[in-house]
């Protein structure tokens, strides 16, 4: 059992997301993270899903995904060299004159940006892979995380390997 990162290229049509997401639930696979967006072709979208399972289970879900008429290509990036990113917005308790300087220092160490400064809080924007964001979240907890929003993971293979079919 391990997290698998699946990149799913789909037709940009209404209802596609519920077909894909519904398949995971129906067949008993969990979705750890989900990101949906446009891609290089205007009539397609790309869905990136992280799901935990053994290789056999993931193989089955890939085949089931491929059966959906509106799924064009499924790529499993788990075992190939790839870049993966998530973004988190973290609103932390950080009062001027108190812990704010420490929080700013931490942000700097993680190359997080301060995107909002309030009287008692700041909002950090951090980009990175899952473990980096988890690490920052852990460190910030002692100051008091008021709210946290995280995107799903997006991923792309390095070099010449592609997640798009060779249609061009």
């Amino acid at each position, binding site marked *: 059992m391990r997290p698998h990162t699946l990149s799913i290229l*789909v*037709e940009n049509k*209404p*209802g596609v997301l*519920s*077909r894909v997401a*519904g398949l995971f639930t*129906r067949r008993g696979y969990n979705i750890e993270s989900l990101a949906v967006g446009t891609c290089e072709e205007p009539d397609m979208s790309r869905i990136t899903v992280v799901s935990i399972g053994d290789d*056999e289970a993931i*193989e*089955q879900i890939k*085949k*089931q995904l*491929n*059966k*959906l*008429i*509106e*799924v*064009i290509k499924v790529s499993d990036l788990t075992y190939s060299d790839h870049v993966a990113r998530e973004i988190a917005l973290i609103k932390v308790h950080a009062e001027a004159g108190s812990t704010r300087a420490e929080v700013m220092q931490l942000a700097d160490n993680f190359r997080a940006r301060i995107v909002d400064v309030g009287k008692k809080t700041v909002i950090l924007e951090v980009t990175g892979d899952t473990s980096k964001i988890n690490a920052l979240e852990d460190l910030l907890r002692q100051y008091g995380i008021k709210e946290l929003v995280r995107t799903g993971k997006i991923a792309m293979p390095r070099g010449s390997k592609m997640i798009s*079919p060779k*249609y061009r």
Partner: protein
Amino acid sequence: MKSGAKILFESLAKEGVETIFGYPGGSVLPIYDELYDSDVRHILVRHEQAAVHAADGYARASGKVGVCLATSGPGACNLVTGIATAYMDSAPVVAITGQVPTTLLGRDAFQESDITGITLPVTKHNYLVPRTEELGRIIHEAFYIAGSGRQGPVLIDIPKDVTTGTAEYNAESDSLVSLRGYQPTLQGHPRMIEKAMNRIARAERPLIYAGGGVISSGGSEELVQFAEQWHIPVTTTLMGLGAIPCDHELCLGMLGMHGTECANYAVTECDLLIAVGVRFDDRVTGKVEAFAPNADVIHIDIDPAEIGKNKRVDIPIVGDVRIALRQMLQENESRTSPRQWNERVAQWKEEFPANYPDDGKLRPQFIVKELSDLLNGRGIIVTEVGQNQMWAAQHFCFRRPRQWISSGGLGTMGYGFPAAIGAAVACPDEPVIDIAGDGSFQMNIQELATVAQYNIPVKVVILNNQFLGMVRQWQELFYERRYSFTELPPVDFVRVAEAYGVPGIRVDAPEDVRAALETALNTDGPFVLDFHIEREENVMPMVPAGAAINEMILGERK
């Protein structure tokens, strides 16, 4: 410019649709108005569930896509069981539903239901048509998807303003389907074919396990040829009955929960299992670890997701069964026939025939056998679900594909009668028999009105035990005969039939069976035969749930 309703019928005509089964309502009024002058034959059922089962039965009997039509809301929802039935058995059906106008969608309008959402898990694909301009293309896509690859039901939900709106439609150009996300693999991979043939050549105890994929691909001839060429015995699933003639020397009958002893022993002992158009369903495998425990597995199927889903496969061949078998027939491997093994299998077959007591009581098995003898290869047998279905599967001798129609995957009571209507409409020259239980028949008994109205010659053979027999059997065997809500009070089916204008006979004695069957078969039009059978007869052999398939409970031996 043409109205959506007109486009619908022009595209159906282009797809070669001659008959549809349906039921009208508010949101399909424009469609029914167009139908009024159309050449399409419309059969008015008495419940939408029957429309979809009839379309399914039509499809299974003919190999063509079956079509049904229902209104929005309750009409559409009444289709769901039938769509799920077709989905589980990979039957090609196009279900057309009306929907509230696009302007009212999402507002809980009168008779609005999200039927594409509801049927998402039980359709191969579905559509909510957004604009009249897209209607023609969508209909052609739907037929292509339903009828190709691993077949299945496709639903098209058409808002009322899409049928009243107008658009251009050109049957030639709009029927050219191109779907980049859907390209079924038909040819088996040559390397896998070669590997399979090498393995077959080395097999000492090979066995073919054939299923519904053989029937739907039209590959029965190839299957038999292949089995004969290599002298390999064949067992079939419930869905595969008819893939090889039951009286063929190499045919071992059905395997699994109510399979023959011979087939189940052969599976357990084989060293090579050639699985063709099957999906290793739990009713077939029993305890899956003990299913073909000593065998390498070759699995041929058009659906890649079936390979390795329930059972580890050594040599996968993704492709159309018929095409893959043809490829395999071309390989020039040779091998001495597995004499010892074939003799062993033949011995089981001889030693353990399907049996039932012959004691003067009216036994359901006897009725099925009489029917089988009388029809002698003719006819289409459709069944309900339960004991009646298993007795029909065990005791009727199927000689050709598409002679057997039954709800295997979903096990839908009430399927048989309407599916038989569909089969009878598709094959007007064949006698069509619905083998029923008294419970199942009452789930779509209203269709007596349909067969009476159109004089559809379906013969209903009720194996009447005044029980929900199959459930009673489980209660007898596994719940200490605590018959909780499985006893059914008697119903006078002959009078019910007569009230609908359908003739019927009640039969209580074995000696009257033949004459009654002959009367029914010789009567033009529908007929109901109410056989009052031994009430607590069981279906044997039986593999208890979760047991290995060679651990059968056996019936009395003769």
